[in-house]
């Protein structure tokens, strides 16, 4: 691109005011900001969370994207209808479902096995977004650890147990959706 190119838009630099030219007033201003923050931090207003001693506080745990859970309906059955939408939407290809004909009247299929590789998952929430019956949800459990890779592949029972563990603190978003209520 040449200097006379008509596509170049020439912008004039804003003129410096007196304090900008003198430099020192601006510096004092900057130093004042520094001191303000220094004072706040020394008064214990730092934003850091000292993690193991102090649990992070979520503004809204319902929209946090942590470990998955598989929701249960009012009769305690898994809510999932094995439609594979979540597995299709998953960008990390970490959901593995085996769907078979369901033993119940009100739906055609249900997952015989449902596994999520929590290590491959990127916690994007696409599965939650895709599910037509809100069967899969991300909870606010953030401190997921394990000693082996196998341990981190969650099967259906494990995912359902996550639901049991979190259902009181994080209610299902739309309990009315899908299956018999």
């Amino acid at each position, binding site marked *: 691109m040449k200097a*006379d190119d008509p596509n170049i838009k020439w912008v004039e630099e804003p003129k410096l005011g007196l304090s900008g030219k003198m430099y020192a007033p601006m510096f004092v201003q900057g130093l004042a900001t520094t001191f303000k*923050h220094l004072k706040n931090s020394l008064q214990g207003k730092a934003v850091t969370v000292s993690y193991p001693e102090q649990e992070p506080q979520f503004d809204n745990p319902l929209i946090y994207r942590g470990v998955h859970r598989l929701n249960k309906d009012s009769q305690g059955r898994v809510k999932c209808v094995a439609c594979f939408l979540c597995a299709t939407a998953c960008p990390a290809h970490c959901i593995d479902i085996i769907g078979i004909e369901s033993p119940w009247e009100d739906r055609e299929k249900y997952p015989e096995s449902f596994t999520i590789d929590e290590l491959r998952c990127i916690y994007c929430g696409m599965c939650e977004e895709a599910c037509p019956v809100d069967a899969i949800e991300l909870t606010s459990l953030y401190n997921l650890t394990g000693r082996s890779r196998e341990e981190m592949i969650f099967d259906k029972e494990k995912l359902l147990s996550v639901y049991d563990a979190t259902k009181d603190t994080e209610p299902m978003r739309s309990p009315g959706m899908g299956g018999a209520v």
Partner: protein
Amino acid sequence: MIEALIKIAIVIGGLMTAAAYFVLLERRMAAWVQDRVGPNRVGAPLSQLNKSWKDLRLFGLGQPAADGVKFILKEEYTPAHVDKRLFVLAPISILVAALATFAVIPFGSILPPGLLSDEPIALVISPGAGVGMLVVFALSSIAVYGVILGGWASNNKYSFLGALRSSAQLIAYELPLGLGILGVILATGSLDLDKIISAQAETGWWFAFTQPLGFFVFFVAAFAEAARLPFDLPECEQELIGGYHTEYSGIKLLLFLVAEFLHMIAASFLIVMLFFGGWHFWFITGADANPGWVQAILRVAVLMTKIFLVILFFMLVRWSWPRFRFDQLMAFAWKVMLPLGLINFVAVAAIDQFRTISGNTSPGMDLLCVAVAWVICIVAWVGISFAGPLVADNRPRADLNPFDIDSQI
């Protein structure tokens, strides 16, 4: 001989410890200014000794040790394409030069005779070196060699450009540094740091008050010489890959970093001694050449406190001021600092001469001289600001066609 060795041990031990803990302090300060907490966990890992004991945190005081061990245990990689001898020599030379400056920098006043020896002990490694300031300057110039050697021996274009950049900066700011000191030397008539401090202690007027312009020039140049923000172009951690020590790792990198901290400490020492009265503080330390024990210890304490405060200021400035562009940096040295330094020199000489001629030594005269110095300082500062040498338009000119631009170049 023994006495000198003990002093060397004290100074080197103290400096190395101080450098390590200043790194920690700098990290904590950075964290506080940025609303964080900073490294506060490494303390005494007692649970490693006995499972039932709890680790002590001690506000992160173990961090320097952990950092040091980390640097030593890290792989020390020497690239195949470097000049091995110079590559090793560079960090050593820069550290040696940085440490050697402290041979002439006093770390206190003088200890009274009797308890330790029959003679009074001067708290400086080489007492009576009448040309202390010259030695400091000579050695600080050698630091530039370390920088150039480091960049050159690395045989890497980024290192080399970094070294060129740094040496241009260090050499440019040596001039205002010298001009700032010139006023002080003119006023005391001595190159000896001890004499300069006593001169301030006797009158009670620190040179920061009587020569404000010289103080500003020296202060700014000291920041640039220590390569601290806003003059940290030799490193530019954030946007230019490192600079002259790009190829260094492990303990050699540590030597560079320690040397940089030592430069900062040396700069603080000089600022305090030349312009803030060194160990002198009104009503506390006295000014006589033979202090008692209480006064001698108070003087060391006052000196260390002042230096600590200056270093704190160094650290706070880092988070307050954005870095200069390189052309601004050079313009600042040659078009702002140099004229201000010259004005200061002339002003100091004129005021001194005026006092001598008038023969008046009353406190009123002192006040008048200080007032005149401040007026000159402010007028010069405002005048330079209006001349605006830092405002540079580096864009290609829209009103010229490309051929004109070519012919201009």
